[in-house]
């Protein structure tokens, strides 16, 4: 199972104010809040931690087939500039974060090379999937199940065991595992 998340820092800065009253309390545990306030660049830290939670959340949704919004319960630990882990109930999910071009990208699976680029429309995205999978575009579709979990289907046959697409602002990224 793969989960990933991309944050366009420019858009994040425009749309959200991490210092807004109540913002940190709704997203972060007390320890995380203290950590954010202790670092040199809290804005960057907020969005790195957020991307870790989102990436881990996407794995949990695939495993448990249920959706929820409890970011403060997905507790992050920073292990290094790129490595981290997210704890939720009994489980721990490792994360790997990279930054480029004013965006932060976190994934739970660093073995699978992500495609990262400019935001595409659904037709362009499908063409890109088709190209990578070596199948014609016609017949290829992204289908979401009841829990909103997407996978690629070609001529009604499921092609992927896990697919994670993330887009924010100018950029998007995806990773998948084939069946």
């Amino acid at each position: 199972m793969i989960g990933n998340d991309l944050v366009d820092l420019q858009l994040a800065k425009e749309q959200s104010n991490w210092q807004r009253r109540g913002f940190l309390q709704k997203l972060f545990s007390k320890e995380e809040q203290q950590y954010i306030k202790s670092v040199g660049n809290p804005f960057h830290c907020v969005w790195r931690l957020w991307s870790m939670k989102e990436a881990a959340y996407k794995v949990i949704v695939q495993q448990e087939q249920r959706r929820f919004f409890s970011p403060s319960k997905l507790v992050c630990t920073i292990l290094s500039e790129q490595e981290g882990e997210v704890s939720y109930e009994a489980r721990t999910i490792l994360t790997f974060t990279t930054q480029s071009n004013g965006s932060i990208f976190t994934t739970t699976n660093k073995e699978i090379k992500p495609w990262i680029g400019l935001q595409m429309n659904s037709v362009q995205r499908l063409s890109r999937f088709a190209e990578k999978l070596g199948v014609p575009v016609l017949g290829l579709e992204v289908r979401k199940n009841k829990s909103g979990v997407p996978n690629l289907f070609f001529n009604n046959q499921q092609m992927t065991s896990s697919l994670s697409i993330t887009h924010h602002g100018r950029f998007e990224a995806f990773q998948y595992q084939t069946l």
Partner: protein
Amino acid sequence: MSTDVLFLENISLNMTRETLISSLKSIVEPYVQDQEAFENLSEETDFINDLKINSANLVDVILDVEDEFDIEIDNDAMEQMLSVKAALDIIESKLSP
């Protein structure tokens, strides 16, 4: 109670619900990325799956709701606030005495 009074009470409850929907629409609008879903907004509309609101903005929506209605939505109440209906139910429960 007579049926007339119950009928009028029902109308006022529905109007309140509609007024709430209208306020909620204004609140989510800046974050919506699917105009068609927004125009067809109903109680069944899902913030993330239908309106394509980025989950990063869901906190902003919830904070805006708190400010607009002068209520407090704790993290437990927030956990299932993924659809219009869920939001309305939570707002109503926090507004009622």
